[in-house]
């Protein structure tokens, strides 16, 4: 069974993407924006929601995990492991940048997430006075990450800025890593 499913996933170019970050970072809004759903009716996510986004012939199964829950249960199951991580940062929230760093670095130590690439979304770029990507890169100590391939993009879930570019990065990375041949 497992082998059939794994083969099918490879054929359908399916990926499991884990979307994480502190609460109120805008994870659900990003998913909704990408799927062209109404972004004005987002309430805090309890637990997790799975959505599939089709992009460039790839099926991205996005696991949008509620802010406060960075629980191991979602990191893999029998059928799939996590292929990519999207870490969403609220670029207006200077206060909790330190917390955010701790969480992220703790997460990357997890064995179950080995081999997954990391995209950091600096969300809410449309808000005036938000932090720059350099600020965030510095604040999250991204340069210290050597265990995972990573990049950072500023984006806005409200305007849609850079969201597609983010997906692009995830898919391109997957092409090089997961669907090489």
């Amino acid at each position, binding site marked *: *069974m497992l082998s059939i499913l794994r083969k099918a996933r490879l054929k359908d170019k399916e990926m499991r993407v884990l979307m994480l970050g502190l609460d109120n970072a805008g994870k659900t809004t990003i998913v909704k924006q990408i799927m062209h759903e109404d972004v004005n009716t987002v309430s805090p996510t309890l637990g997790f929601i799975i959505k599939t986004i089709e992009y460039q012939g790839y099926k991205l199964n996005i696991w949008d995990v509620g802010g406060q829950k960075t629980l191991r*249960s979602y990191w893999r199951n029998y059928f799939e492991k996590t292929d990519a991580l999207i870490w969403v940062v609220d670029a207006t929230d200077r206060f909790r940048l330190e917390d955010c760093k701790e969480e992220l670095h703790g997460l990357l130590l997890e064995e179950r997430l080995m081999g997954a690439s990391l995209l950091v979304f600096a969300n809410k770029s449309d808000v005036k006075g938000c932090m720059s990507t350099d600020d965030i890169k510095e604040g999250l100590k991204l340069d210290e990450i050597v265990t995972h391939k990573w990049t950072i993009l500023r984006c806005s879930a409200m305007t849609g800025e850079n969201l597609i570019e983010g997906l692009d990065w995830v898919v391109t990375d997957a092409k090089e890593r997961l669907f090489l*041949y």
Partner: protein
Amino acid sequence: MDAIPEDREIKALKHSNPLLQDINNRLSGLLWDTRDGQKKLRPRVKIVDYHHIIGRLESFQEFPQLLDPILAGCMENLTSAFSVYLSMEDGESEPASDAEDRVTVNTLAALGQLLYVWMKVRGPKVVLRFLYNDPKWLEPMLGVFEQTSKLIGKTDKSADVLNDVVEEIFEGAPKPKAEDKSGLPWHLRYVTLMWISHLLYTPFDLVTIGDEPAGKPPTPLVKVPALPQGTPEIARRALNVACCNIHSPGKDREGASATIVRLVVRKDIYGCLLDWFVDWVATIIDLCVKGNLREDDKGVAYVYFLMGLLGALSGIFASGERSIVGQPNLLQKVYDNIIRELYTDESGLVAQNAMLRKTLCKLLRNISYLYLPPSGQGETQDGPPEEVEEMIDQLLRLLDDRDSLVRYAASKSLSLVALRLAAADRSQIFEAVIDLYDSDVLYPNRALTKLDPKKRHQKDLSQVSVHLWHGLTLTVATFLRFHAATVQMLPKVLDCIITALTFEQRKATFATGGNVRDAACYAAWSLARNYKTEEMMAEEPAPPHSEDVSLPQLLALELVDAACLDPIGNIRRGASAALQELVGRHPNMIQDGISLVQAVDYSAVALRSRASTEVASKAAVLGGACYWGGLINGLVDDWRGIGLQDSVGRIVAGKGIGALSKIGILDLNKRQEVWNISKNIIKRYGTGASLDIEVRHGSWYALADTIFSLINELEKANPKLLVEILSEMREKTGVFEIFDNVKPRDFVHPVLKPEMTCEAAAYLVTALSDAAKIMSPHIEMRVAAMSAFADGIFPEGVTNEHILQAIHKSLIDYSVDSRGDVGSWARIEAIRAVLSLHTLHPLDIHTPDSTSLKIFHKIIGLTAEKLDRVRLKACDAVWKLTAQEPQWAIIFNGITAESNFWVNWDDYFETTVKILSLQSVRESYLEGYATSAGAGSDSVMRSSTRAMQKYMSGLPPYPTSDGGVALSDIVQSWIAIVEKAIAVSDDRVVVPALAMLGGWFESGLMEKLDGGEFRFQGLFSLTQKAHFKSSNVAKLSGAVKIYNGLASIKSTRTSSVKKLVSMLLHPFPKIRTAVSETLYLIISLEGGQEDAEVLLMDTNWVDQPKELKATVEEIKGLLGI
């Protein structure tokens, strides 16, 4: 069954880098010689290095993608080496010397195997992309077969060496016959043929590549029909080479098929060969499917020959252009002359070979495609053509194949063909699949019986085909994945999935159905993933399921059960994954879904023992306890619980029931449900002819664990509640009478698996006696349990830890109630049990720390018991247990069953006290002695004290060279017992023990130790500790006696007197008086303290202590302390 640990994959990923580097580095060294600064291909390679690389590659079999970083580099090495070898001039491949023969192999042969292993691990399609595709290599590749002797010496043994290797490494790889072929190892043949097929993709006409006939073409064993005029020479050569291998039982046959496929579908070739090939296949079908021959006159097995041809045929129709291979005439010819014959299978050849049927499934799919319009180009108006319907019918039939690989292939083909059909036709097929679930299902006769609605839908699946259910469930999963079921069908589909999730069929010695449940998890997952919440909520569950529960919730209930309870680890994981998908895709549809997913997590369910206890407990309290009932009943009723075929599984299920019962009673207010379940458990195993011994084993464990888990939870926290619950359980379930129906032969008759019954009985007896002890009126239960053992329910030679533990506990049962020392009944029965056990299986009284040794020691202690019955029984036991022990002969010397010893207490104690001479049991005896020293009838007390003192007075103060026991040994042991008893404040021992010590001082025994190693100071501190803040008069009196004795010892004289003086102010008048008398005696014996003597004599020590203070100060002054 536990699932494999999850970290294997992680480990592979973590450690893959060095392994990959190693493969990469060694490969270059293996193939190329760079000593002269020039890169030269080695003609032969070292076997050792070569094996090393193969082994490393093999280790990636499960994680092939990890190889990708080195894939390109390695392929470059392998392909260039291959081509260099082929380009070498004649004579460069000198024959190997004998010595070389053993440590090296021919490089070309080795390259063949290396490429083969890459293809096997990483997949042939991926590897082929790296092979040269320049058509100039076509001729040299053909040369591998046509000019073998130029490439590999005739006497070369590489093929044998490699084939041997292969046999070790790859199971099932067929070994070619020795006289067969050209000395080429099969891997090399396979790889070369695959390469040739790859080269045949060349867009250039084959005529332009070369048109020379082969010099010395090999002759195929099979009869190849004459090729049509005008077939290009290269095509002839390629076909010839392929035909040499098309009937091979090994993998090389697949290479041959691939070559034929690529050749026949070529634009410049199909004109010559397509019809020719189809006719050839039809001829062979005629021979072997219609005829009865199994091999031809040259010994070619038709089964492989046909497999090769059909493989090629299927490939041709799969990859040929529609305009070429889709011509109606050709299709019809294939269908009538080949496919129909395969259905009929007159000779039974197809029925006998799974690979053939698998190939057939593929062929049917590829032909069906061509009968139908190309995908995405309109739909057929009036249903699919008749041929397609027939093929679908065949595929449905193949879902029931006895070989799983055929079922997989049939299910895949069926789903893929269905996808090409119009939506209406597609759902028709799906309905057919769903309807097939009903074949051979037996329902109760609804007309005759008045059944409750639940039972009316109860399905009897004992007659259905496991194979069919597997095939169907696989197909359902695939269909759901393609969203091919209509919403109206979902209730029916869900019912199928749920039934499949709990599918099990018992065979004589094993259970089947794991594959059905595995597929059901996949189907559940597909349903959750590919249907929208609105779709799932649009319909209500079909009977027998309650309409009040939504479809997703119904599925969740079943998935929780499967994830916690299924005996197979991967099914638990599959169910957990499906549950995750269900909760994540349908937010807020599942009760407490989020917490559920966290509890029933991938790694938590890996171990069965954890899944059905801890994980089930966590899930049981969620969602308003809606999961509790399914879980506990699953453990009770189902094949997943106490009725499992393996005993370990039943024990785990018992634990699970215990845990869930406890939660039910204490947290979920479900006492009545639990009692009903317990009653069911008792009823379940049946009686008489219907008795199920396995189920009884599981049932007893379940009941015992229910009791144990309640005791563990409540014994300390809320004993009152515990007693209440246990009493209610006793009343409502009848568990305490459970052994009433058990026959003695159940424990001895070999056919009735007595060892299993005994093990479970012992466990349950322990639980019941623990429970009985807590509900103390039920001492009778414990006694009854022990009597059961004593009366010989032990089967031949069976003892186990549970039994021994239970006995041990009963030996130290000192329960007292209004009737007195009722614990003594248990003690006696326990001793009897030991003896009963001993007659069948001598008790091990030598292994340190064993329970049996502990039992022996306790019985020795009981020989000094206060109660006559117990004491005699114990002594009888010791006498019998030690009959074969030489060192015990001194003690029971001359004693027979009729001896006076058994009735005369003086005799008895004078004999038994000699046990003290045995160092290994001394302390045990003294412990027993201490326990009963202060009690018992006067005559017994006197006899025992007298015997002890008499014995001790005959001992030397300190050990002598003869190694015998000394007075100091006994005193030390005694003190050790006092220390132990003080530590746990066991006054039952401390009080008489102190009195005993006081007595030894009085009789002058202790004085003998003065001036030796014995530390009286230590005894002084111990005595102080013993009565510290105590209000026990007896204890205090004992202490005073000891101080008295210690005062006559030089080293402790001052401290003892000081202590006694301070005790003159003790709050108890009785103590003050006793102390004053003691002090008087001490002082008067010492002399010279007349003033103090007078004061001690004349003071009224019954007065209030504060009035005595001045006097005591005065005495202190007089005594100079």
